[in-house]
Protein backbone atom coordinates (compact mmCIF):
# COMPACT_ATOMS: atom_id res chain seq x y z
CA UNK A 1 0.00 0.00 0.00
CA UNK A 2 1.17 3.52 -0.71
CA UNK A 3 2.95 5.73 1.80
CA UNK A 4 2.20 9.44 1.69
CA UNK A 5 3.56 12.27 3.81
CA UNK A 6 2.15 15.30 5.61
CA UNK A 7 3.20 18.81 4.56
CA UNK A 8 5.95 19.00 7.19
CA UNK A 9 6.99 15.35 6.86
CA UNK A 10 7.51 16.03 3.15
CA UNK A 11 9.78 18.98 3.91
CA UNK A 12 11.78 16.95 6.41
CA UNK A 13 12.27 14.24 3.79
CA UNK A 14 13.62 16.73 1.25
CA UNK A 15 15.87 19.17 3.11
CA UNK A 16 16.56 22.25 1.04
CA UNK A 17 16.50 25.99 1.59
CA UNK A 18 12.94 26.08 0.32
CA UNK A 19 11.90 23.34 2.75
CA UNK A 20 13.20 24.73 6.02
CA UNK A 21 10.61 23.81 8.60
CA UNK A 22 9.36 26.51 10.94
CA UNK A 23 10.79 25.75 14.39
CA UNK A 24 7.29 26.23 15.76
CA UNK A 25 6.26 23.06 13.86
CA UNK A 26 8.76 20.42 15.01
CA UNK A 27 10.26 20.28 18.48
CA UNK A 28 8.53 23.53 19.37
CA UNK A 29 8.75 24.89 22.92
CA UNK A 30 5.57 24.60 24.97
CA UNK A 31 4.50 27.22 27.47
CA UNK A 32 1.45 27.45 29.70
CA UNK A 33 -0.81 30.16 31.09
CA UNK A 34 -3.13 29.98 34.05
CA UNK A 35 -5.60 32.53 35.38
CA UNK A 36 -8.92 32.69 37.18
CA UNK A 37 -11.68 35.22 37.70
CA UNK A 38 -14.44 35.33 40.26
CA UNK A 39 -17.58 36.59 38.56
CA UNK A 40 -19.94 38.52 40.85
CA UNK A 41 -22.98 39.74 38.97
CA UNK A 42 -20.72 40.22 35.98
CA UNK A 43 -22.95 41.79 33.35
CA UNK A 44 -23.69 40.57 29.84
CA UNK A 45 -21.09 41.78 27.38
CA UNK A 46 -18.35 42.26 29.97
CA UNK A 47 -14.93 41.70 28.46
CA UNK A 48 -13.24 39.31 30.90
CA UNK A 49 -9.53 39.21 30.10
CA UNK A 50 -7.58 36.25 31.42
CA UNK A 51 -3.83 35.68 31.65
CA UNK A 52 -0.96 37.49 30.06
CA UNK A 53 -0.51 37.75 26.36
CA UNK A 54 -0.11 34.75 24.11
CA UNK A 55 2.77 35.72 21.83
CA UNK A 56 2.45 36.21 18.08
CA UNK A 57 3.00 33.05 16.03
CA UNK A 58 1.91 30.69 18.80
CA UNK A 59 -0.26 27.62 18.33
CA UNK A 60 -2.83 27.17 21.09
CA UNK A 61 -2.72 23.46 21.87
CA UNK A 62 -5.50 20.93 22.29
CA UNK A 63 -6.27 20.25 25.91
CA UNK A 64 -6.46 23.97 26.63
CA UNK A 65 -9.69 24.62 28.49
CA UNK A 66 -11.81 27.08 30.41
CA UNK A 67 -13.16 25.44 33.57
CA UNK A 68 -16.16 27.05 35.22
CA UNK A 69 -18.76 26.84 37.96
CA UNK A 70 -22.44 26.86 37.22
CA UNK A 71 -22.38 30.49 36.15
CA UNK A 72 -26.12 30.96 35.57
CA UNK A 73 -28.35 30.91 32.52
CA UNK A 74 -25.86 32.26 30.04
CA UNK A 75 -23.53 31.43 27.19
CA UNK A 76 -19.99 32.64 26.77
CA UNK A 77 -17.65 32.93 23.85
CA UNK A 78 -13.88 32.61 24.19
CA UNK A 79 -11.57 34.39 21.83
CA UNK A 80 -8.40 36.37 21.40
CA UNK A 81 -10.26 39.65 20.93
CA UNK A 82 -13.07 41.34 22.83
CA UNK A 83 -16.29 39.39 22.09
CA UNK A 84 -14.20 37.06 19.90
CA UNK A 85 -15.01 33.40 19.33
CA UNK A 86 -11.69 32.24 17.85
CA UNK A 87 -11.08 29.74 20.66
CA UNK A 88 -14.63 28.56 21.37
CA UNK A 89 -18.02 29.39 19.90
CA UNK A 90 -20.91 30.37 22.15
CA UNK A 91 -21.25 27.71 24.85
CA UNK A 92 -23.78 27.17 27.63
CA UNK A 93 -22.29 27.72 31.11
CA UNK A 94 -25.42 26.86 33.11
CA UNK A 95 -23.67 23.89 34.74
CA UNK A 96 -20.26 23.10 36.15
CA UNK A 97 -18.13 21.87 33.29
CA UNK A 98 -15.37 22.68 30.85
CA UNK A 99 -15.12 24.52 27.57
CA UNK A 100 -12.38 22.97 25.43
CA UNK A 101 -10.49 25.56 23.41
CA UNK A 102 -9.30 25.44 19.82
CA UNK A 103 -10.48 21.86 19.38
CA UNK A 104 -11.65 21.55 15.79
CA UNK A 105 -9.75 20.85 12.61
CA UNK A 106 -10.54 24.40 11.50
CA UNK A 107 -9.72 26.28 14.72
CA UNK A 108 -6.61 24.30 15.50
CA UNK A 109 -3.56 24.81 13.31
CA UNK A 110 -3.86 28.55 12.89
CA UNK A 111 -1.08 30.55 14.50
CA UNK A 112 -1.74 33.75 16.43
CA UNK A 113 -0.89 36.69 14.20
CA UNK A 114 -0.28 39.15 17.02
CA UNK A 115 0.21 39.02 20.77
CA UNK A 116 -3.21 38.46 22.25
CA UNK A 117 -5.00 37.85 25.53
CA UNK A 118 -7.81 35.41 26.16
CA UNK A 119 -11.19 37.14 26.28
CA UNK A 120 -14.32 35.59 27.78
CA UNK A 121 -17.58 37.29 26.91
CA UNK A 122 -20.95 36.39 28.48
CA UNK A 123 -24.36 37.02 26.92
CA UNK A 124 -26.03 37.25 30.34
CA UNK A 125 -25.03 37.89 33.94
CA UNK A 126 -22.44 35.50 35.43
CA UNK A 127 -21.81 34.43 39.02
CA UNK A 128 -19.02 31.99 39.89
CA UNK A 129 -15.46 31.05 39.16
CA UNK A 130 -13.86 30.71 35.76
CA UNK A 131 -10.39 29.26 35.42
CA UNK A 132 -8.17 29.17 32.36
CA UNK A 133 -5.56 26.56 31.41
CA UNK A 134 -3.95 27.29 28.07
CA UNK A 135 -0.84 25.73 26.56
CA UNK A 136 0.80 27.06 23.43
CA UNK A 137 3.71 26.06 21.26
CA UNK A 138 6.15 28.38 19.56
CA UNK A 139 9.63 28.51 18.10
Amino acid at each position, binding site marked *: *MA*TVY*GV*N*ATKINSPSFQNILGPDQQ*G*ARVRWIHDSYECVATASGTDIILGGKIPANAHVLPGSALYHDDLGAANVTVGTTAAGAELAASTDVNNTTTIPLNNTVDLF*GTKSTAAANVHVTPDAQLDGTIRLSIAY*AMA
Partner: protein
Amino acid sequence: MATVYGVNATKNNAPKPQNVIDPSEQGGRVRWIHDVYEAVTQVSGTDIVLGGVIPKGAQIIPGLSVIYHDALGTGNATVGTSAAGVDLAAAEAVTSAGSIVLNNTVDLFGTKTTDKVNVHFTPLLTITGTIRLSLAYAMA
Protein backbone atom coordinates in the same frame (compact mmCIF):
# COMPACT_ATOMS: atom_id res chain seq x y z
CA MET B 1 -6.60 7.03 56.40
CA ALA B 2 -3.36 5.63 55.07
CA THR B 3 -1.08 7.58 52.78
CA VAL B 4 0.69 5.73 50.01
CA TYR B 5 3.07 6.98 47.34
CA GLY B 6 3.56 6.50 43.63
CA VAL B 7 6.76 5.02 42.24
CA ASN B 8 8.39 8.39 41.64
CA ALA B 9 6.91 9.98 44.77
CA THR B 10 8.51 7.17 46.76
CA LYS B 11 11.88 7.83 45.16
CA ASN B 12 11.45 11.54 45.79
CA ASN B 13 10.85 10.87 49.48
CA ALA B 14 14.04 8.84 49.84
CA PRO B 15 16.74 10.54 47.80
CA LYS B 16 19.78 8.39 47.21
CA PRO B 17 21.72 7.32 44.12
CA GLN B 18 19.45 4.31 43.51
CA ASN B 19 16.37 6.53 43.63
CA VAL B 20 17.31 9.16 41.08
CA ILE B 21 14.12 9.90 39.14
CA ASP B 22 14.33 9.70 35.37
CA PRO B 23 14.55 13.38 34.36
CA SER B 24 11.89 12.77 31.70
CA GLU B 25 9.44 11.91 34.47
CA GLN B 26 9.79 14.94 36.73
CA GLY B 27 10.12 18.35 35.15
CA GLY B 28 10.57 16.72 31.73
CA ARG B 29 11.09 19.07 28.80
CA VAL B 30 8.04 19.30 26.56
CA ARG B 31 8.29 19.67 22.80
CA TRP B 32 5.58 19.79 20.18
CA ILE B 33 5.05 18.59 16.60
CA HIS B 34 2.50 19.83 14.11
CA ASP B 35 1.64 18.57 10.65
CA VAL B 36 -1.26 18.46 8.23
CA TYR B 37 -2.24 16.27 5.29
CA GLU B 38 -4.97 16.84 2.74
CA ALA B 39 -6.31 13.42 1.80
CA VAL B 40 -7.81 13.09 -1.69
CA THR B 41 -9.37 9.66 -2.24
CA GLN B 42 -6.56 8.02 -0.26
CA VAL B 43 -7.29 4.33 -0.39
CA SER B 44 -7.69 2.00 2.55
CA GLY B 45 -4.35 1.01 4.01
CA THR B 46 -2.41 4.05 2.81
CA ASP B 47 0.42 4.84 5.22
CA ILE B 48 0.06 8.55 5.98
CA VAL B 49 3.21 9.75 7.75
CA LEU B 50 2.83 12.94 9.77
CA GLY B 51 5.51 15.19 11.28
CA GLY B 52 9.19 14.66 11.85
CA VAL B 53 10.78 12.12 14.13
CA ILE B 54 9.81 11.72 17.77
CA PRO B 55 13.08 11.01 19.61
CA LYS B 56 13.90 7.79 21.42
CA GLY B 57 13.03 7.90 25.12
CA ALA B 58 10.12 10.32 24.70
CA GLN B 59 6.78 10.07 26.48
CA ILE B 60 3.84 11.15 24.33
CA ILE B 61 1.62 13.38 26.43
CA PRO B 62 -2.12 12.79 26.61
CA GLY B 63 -4.38 15.79 26.24
CA LEU B 64 -1.99 17.71 24.03
CA SER B 65 -1.74 14.93 21.46
CA VAL B 66 -4.69 14.73 19.09
CA ILE B 67 -5.49 14.19 15.42
CA TYR B 68 -8.24 16.49 14.19
CA HIS B 69 -10.03 15.46 11.04
CA ASP B 70 -12.81 16.37 8.68
CA ALA B 71 -15.59 13.90 7.94
CA LEU B 72 -13.33 11.56 5.98
CA GLY B 73 -15.77 8.86 4.91
CA THR B 74 -17.67 5.98 6.47
CA GLY B 75 -15.16 3.90 8.38
CA ASN B 76 -12.28 3.80 10.83
CA ALA B 77 -8.63 4.77 11.06
CA THR B 78 -5.77 3.77 13.34
CA VAL B 79 -2.83 5.80 14.60
CA GLY B 80 0.53 4.39 15.60
CA THR B 81 4.28 4.78 15.50
CA SER B 82 4.69 2.30 12.66
CA ALA B 83 2.84 1.64 9.43
CA ALA B 84 -0.63 0.31 10.30
CA GLY B 85 0.27 0.64 13.99
CA VAL B 86 -2.31 1.08 16.73
CA ASP B 87 -0.02 2.02 19.61
CA LEU B 88 -1.34 5.60 19.75
CA ALA B 89 -5.01 4.93 19.02
CA ALA B 90 -7.00 1.83 18.15
CA ALA B 91 -9.41 1.81 15.21
CA GLU B 92 -11.77 4.73 15.57
CA ALA B 93 -14.54 6.09 13.36
CA VAL B 94 -13.68 9.08 11.18
CA THR B 95 -17.11 9.31 9.59
CA SER B 96 -17.88 12.70 11.16
CA ALA B 97 -15.58 15.68 11.67
CA GLY B 98 -13.91 15.27 15.03
CA SER B 99 -10.76 14.21 16.78
CA ILE B 100 -8.83 11.11 17.76
CA VAL B 101 -7.12 11.45 21.11
CA LEU B 102 -3.73 9.79 21.26
CA ASN B 103 -2.06 7.69 23.93
CA ASN B 104 -4.90 8.22 26.38
CA THR B 105 -5.32 4.91 28.18
CA VAL B 106 -3.51 3.54 31.19
CA ASP B 107 -1.95 0.91 28.97
CA LEU B 108 -0.91 3.14 26.08
CA PHE B 109 0.29 6.06 28.17
CA GLY B 110 3.45 5.73 30.26
CA THR B 111 5.52 3.80 27.75
CA LYS B 112 8.51 5.60 26.34
CA THR B 113 9.48 5.36 22.71
CA THR B 114 12.19 2.75 22.29
CA ASP B 115 13.41 4.13 19.00
CA LYS B 116 13.03 7.21 16.83
CA VAL B 117 9.55 7.04 15.30
CA ASN B 118 7.07 8.95 13.18
CA VAL B 119 3.31 9.17 13.53
CA HIS B 120 1.46 6.93 11.05
CA PHE B 121 -2.23 7.42 10.29
CA THR B 122 -3.80 4.46 8.51
CA PRO B 123 -7.32 4.69 7.10
CA LEU B 124 -9.38 1.53 6.84
CA LEU B 125 -11.44 3.07 4.07
CA THR B 126 -10.95 5.51 1.22
CA ILE B 127 -10.73 8.98 2.75
CA THR B 128 -10.99 12.55 1.56
CA GLY B 129 -10.47 15.60 3.77
CA THR B 130 -8.02 17.28 6.13
CA ILE B 131 -6.02 15.49 8.83
CA ARG B 132 -4.13 17.63 11.32
CA LEU B 133 -1.71 16.41 13.99
CA SER B 134 -0.87 17.97 17.34
CA LEU B 135 1.60 15.87 19.31
CA ALA B 136 3.49 16.81 22.47
CA TYR B 137 6.16 14.71 24.08
CA ALA B 138 8.25 14.93 27.21
CA MET B 139 11.85 13.91 27.51
CA ALA B 140 14.90 14.47 29.67
